[in-house]
């Protein structure tokens, strides 16, 4: 089920594009679930794009990713998805907000 509208532009009062939160793919592990692309099917926010020959996944819209959501990481059968440290992202958010 997908939504066409743009995601909100801020998170915790900070411009979303200033928050480096999106999934990182370990291409030694990612095999695109043999063409099933579980993460692509799982994430309703159009973060991912499927690649072929060989099948694997790519982050197409990093800022569509919901900050601190790791749902796809829990779904990935190959443990190929990781996210930044929450504490580090929180530090950046606070610093960005302080900059005003």
């Amino acid at each position, binding site marked *: *089920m997908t*939504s*066409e509208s743009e995601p909100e532009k801020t998170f915790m009062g900070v411009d979303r594009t200033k928050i480096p939160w999106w999934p990182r793919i370990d291409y030694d592990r990612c095999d695109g679930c043999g063409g099933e692309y579980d993460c692509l099917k799982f994430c309703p926010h159009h973060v991912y794009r499927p690649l072929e020959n060989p099948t694997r996944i790519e982050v197409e819209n990093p800022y569509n990713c*919901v*900050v601190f*959501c*790791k*749902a796809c990481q829990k*779904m990935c059968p190959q443990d190929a998805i990781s996210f930044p440290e929450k504490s580090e992202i929180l530090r950046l958010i606070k610093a960005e907000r302080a900059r005003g």
Partner: protein
Amino acid sequence: MADEQRPGFIMCVCTGKCPGFEKMDIWDFINRVRIELPVEYGIIHPQLCEEDGDRYLEHVLKNGPPIVVGGCAPRMQRKLFRDAFAKKGLDVERDLIPIDIRDMTTDEAVNKVIDVLKENGPYDE
């Protein structure tokens, strides 16, 4: 639904930034659910799948009524809340009633909750 069986209702809104809930007024929705429908309570949680969401679920699950979560797809909910339920000796397949209410109007979402409540036990109009 007799009082002791009434489920608790939690709406999960994916930080409130998810476009999946833009077609509805989440406040109209939760007010109708908690006031009009036979539920023990109705609340909105911003991100149940995050650490504080786990802690909240563990806290709420201590008291025992079945939990209805209106939010993302049931498959996602079962995967995301499995650990919090298991920690309380509960099973998401049995003790969680997940409903996908994304991309719905307020009326559509309320009607879907009514249908699911009816499917899961006696329902007092």
